[in-house]
């Protein structure tokens, strides 16, 4: 109901006041960022408040957030809101729930949505907008997104031509984990093209090792790591445009491009000389959980493991994740050294209320101030926000992710299975990929997925 409240005149005034505030705010935060090196705690608290006070007196107001981000990633999130809370007097109530993706739809439909939801999939975002409970992003947020993100990111937060949700965090999926120590000892070079990756794998085989380890078991979502593999190869072998068409089903799921991509994956995952280091034969891929699949690297039983940046958290405490540490990652190379397709994911900030404090908080989250504050507090987190200074990231793997995302040649593409209809992206794609690992041929697999696409 209160979506309609507030006259348009006061909104125009608000927007005007805000844009002035924004200019001040940004210039001010540029200053404050320069002298942060010495004392991060104090600088995190000292942000310029004018962009947010422009929304009016917000003291004593509450903003509720509902998200699928739970422990331990939730702590840096909550801490990164403190500067905003301190300067505006708003209380931010954070609720993390692993069942977010189903529960948010229930809550939205029942009329009990949070003020703000962090939506991890563009497909889910569209469904939420369809419930009619979501509200468009305020112009201040749109301005921030135009400034700090590329058009590819803004498009993912847009539904039916209306801009709803600003990007929040991001993760890079096109990574291969390896042991820097092993590479140094055996003289392996980090590959820069797909052919070099193949050559490296063969070299490891020649040295008597099993180069790759993989695992796709993940409860009811078993199979998803294969979909990431296939999407990465689709991007590399057929290009971003073909990838977009494939995701939107403008070209068939079982066409020549997709066949080439899945066969490309098969050259690694279904090659019994390449897999499954430290874990068993090819079929053991299906029974190994994705969380455990990269751990043999630490024991020297496996050399390469393709998994997203968030996999860093999977290594046991005490593992040094760095270029000179126990384990690190390199960018899964493109077809040649110049093309840099990046497969990834991220969350989007969708609001269900347009109260001033909610809009102010959305504006804060879409700013470079927040991105840099968050970067200093967390490990295993990165944003595609161009205002993010990679030097603020505490973790080497995050710095690698940020450099990949901010590479001018990078072509970012969202995880395709997250954007396909649920019947495919969260069902047949996973199941058929699992069947493919345990012996089904490529053609049957792709034909079955094509058949399951909703008409």
């Amino acid at each position: 109901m209160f979506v309609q409240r507030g006259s348009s005149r006061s909104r125009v005034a608000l927007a005007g006041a805000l844009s002035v505030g924004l200019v001040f705010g940004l210039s001010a935060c540029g200053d404050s960022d320069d002298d942060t090196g010495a004392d991060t705690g104090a600088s995190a608290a000292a942000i310029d408040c004018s962009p947010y006070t422009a929304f009016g007196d917000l003291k004593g107001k509450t903003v509720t957030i509902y998200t699928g981000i739970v422990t331990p990633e939730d702590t840096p999130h909550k801490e990164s809101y403190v500067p905003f809370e301190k300067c505006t007097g708003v209380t931010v109530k954070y609720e993390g729930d692993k069942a977010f993706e189903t529960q948010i739809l229930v809550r939205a439909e029942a009329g009990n949505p949070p003020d703000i939801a962090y939506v991890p999939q563009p497909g889910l975002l569209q469904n939420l907008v369809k419930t009619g409970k979501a509200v468009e992003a305020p112009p201040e947020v749109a301005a921030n997104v135009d400034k700090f993100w590329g058009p590819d990111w803004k498009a993912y937060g847009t539904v039916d031509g209306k801009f709803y949700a600003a990007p929040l965090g991001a993760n890079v999926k096109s990574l291969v984990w390896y042991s820097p120590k092993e590479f140094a000892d055996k003289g392996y070079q980090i590959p820069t093209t797909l052919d070099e990756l193949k050559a490296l794998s063969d070299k490891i085989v020649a040295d008597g090792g099993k180069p790759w380890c993989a695992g796709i078991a993940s409860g009811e979502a078993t199979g998803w790591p294969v979909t990431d593999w296939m999407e990465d190869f689709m991007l590399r072998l057929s290009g971003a445009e073909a990838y977009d068409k494939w995701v939107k089903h403008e070209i068939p799921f079982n066409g020549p491009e997709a066949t080439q991509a899945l066969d490309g994956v098969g050259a690694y995952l279904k090659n019994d000389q390449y897999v499954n280091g430290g874990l068993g034969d090819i079929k053991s891929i299906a029974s190994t959980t994705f969380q455990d699949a990269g751990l043999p690297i630490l024991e020297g039983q496996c050399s390469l493991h393709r998994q997203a940046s968030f996999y860093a958290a999977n290594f046991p405490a005490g593992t040094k994740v760095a270029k000179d540490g126990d384990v690190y990652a390199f960018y899964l190379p493109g077809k040649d050294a110049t093309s840099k397709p990046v497969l990834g994911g991220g969350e989007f900030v969708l609001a269900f209320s347009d109260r001033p404090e909610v809009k102010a908080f959305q504006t804060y989250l879409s700013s470079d101030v927040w991105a840099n504050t968050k970067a200093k507090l967390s490990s295993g987190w990165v944003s595609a926000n161009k205002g993010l200074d990679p030097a603020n990231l505490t973790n080497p793997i995050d710095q690698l992710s940020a450099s990949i995302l901010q590479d001018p040649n990078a072509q970012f593409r969202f995880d395709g299975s997250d954007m396909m209809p649920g019947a495919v992206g969260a069902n047949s794609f996973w199941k058929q990929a699992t069947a493919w690992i345990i012996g089904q041929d490529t053609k049957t697999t792709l034909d079955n997925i094509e058949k399951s696409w909703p008409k």
Partner: protein
Amino acid sequence: MTTAAPLTTTPVSKSETKKLSAAASAKNKLTSPWASLAAVVLAVLWTIPTFGLLISSFRPEMAIKRTGWWTFFSDPEVTLDNYRAVFDDGGINLADFFLNSLVITIPSVVIPLCLASLAAYAFAWMNFPGKNILFIAIFALQIVPLQVTLVPLLQLYVKAGLNNTFWTLWLSHSTFALPLAIYLLHNFIKEVPSSLIEAARIDGAGHVSIFFKVLLPLLTPALAAFGIFQFLWVWNDLLVSLTFAGSPEISPMTVQLSNLSGTRGTAWHLLSAGAFVSIVVPVTVFLLLQRYFVRGLLAGSVKG
């Protein structure tokens, strides 16, 4: 109903002796060495997974993730890190949600018990128009899966302004429990000899005093049995609280337990420790009340 019963307590004592002898004969039949062996084998098989979980909860992270719990015997490594982590203030501190679970569970057991015992009495010993149809309706309601009611119920709560309060959970658990509770207690109350009720009535007792003075003492085992059922169900419930508890302030331990493994399930080694923290209360309740539980189940089946 119309024949007057003698005003003595003999029927009661007679039925008690009968019950005893029935129990005694059952005891005789069951105490054979083979039956004992079968029971021991079953108990061991049944306990192994829980035992493995207990061992796992004391093993270090890397050992849990890379090897099975049985390797503990060849390579015993014991740590309390997992328990420390589930009581960690930085992450999820299960102790905070312990109280929520109690606050949710106790009213969710008491409310249906009170209502159901009254309703069961009315259905068993009172005559009013539409009684049979109502009873069939309640009986039929057991068939409705609670999943289909989630969204409509939440919509009702939002309309009534009850969302994000404990009321949503108390009311939901009570309504979901009532059909079965009424049905079970009705069958139990119906089995009380009618002579007993009539005797009380002749002594001048109304419905209220019959219920409180005559039936309630007899009902205790059945109430305890259903109470345990309901307690375990509510304590272990995840779906209802996930849907209706709209904020961490009122969410029970199960919801936090499901979040314990972390956003991408990377901390699943904590689940065994978390599971043991959460089963402390149900196991205690069960052990303390199990004699009622067995008696309550028997009382319904062995006719006096």
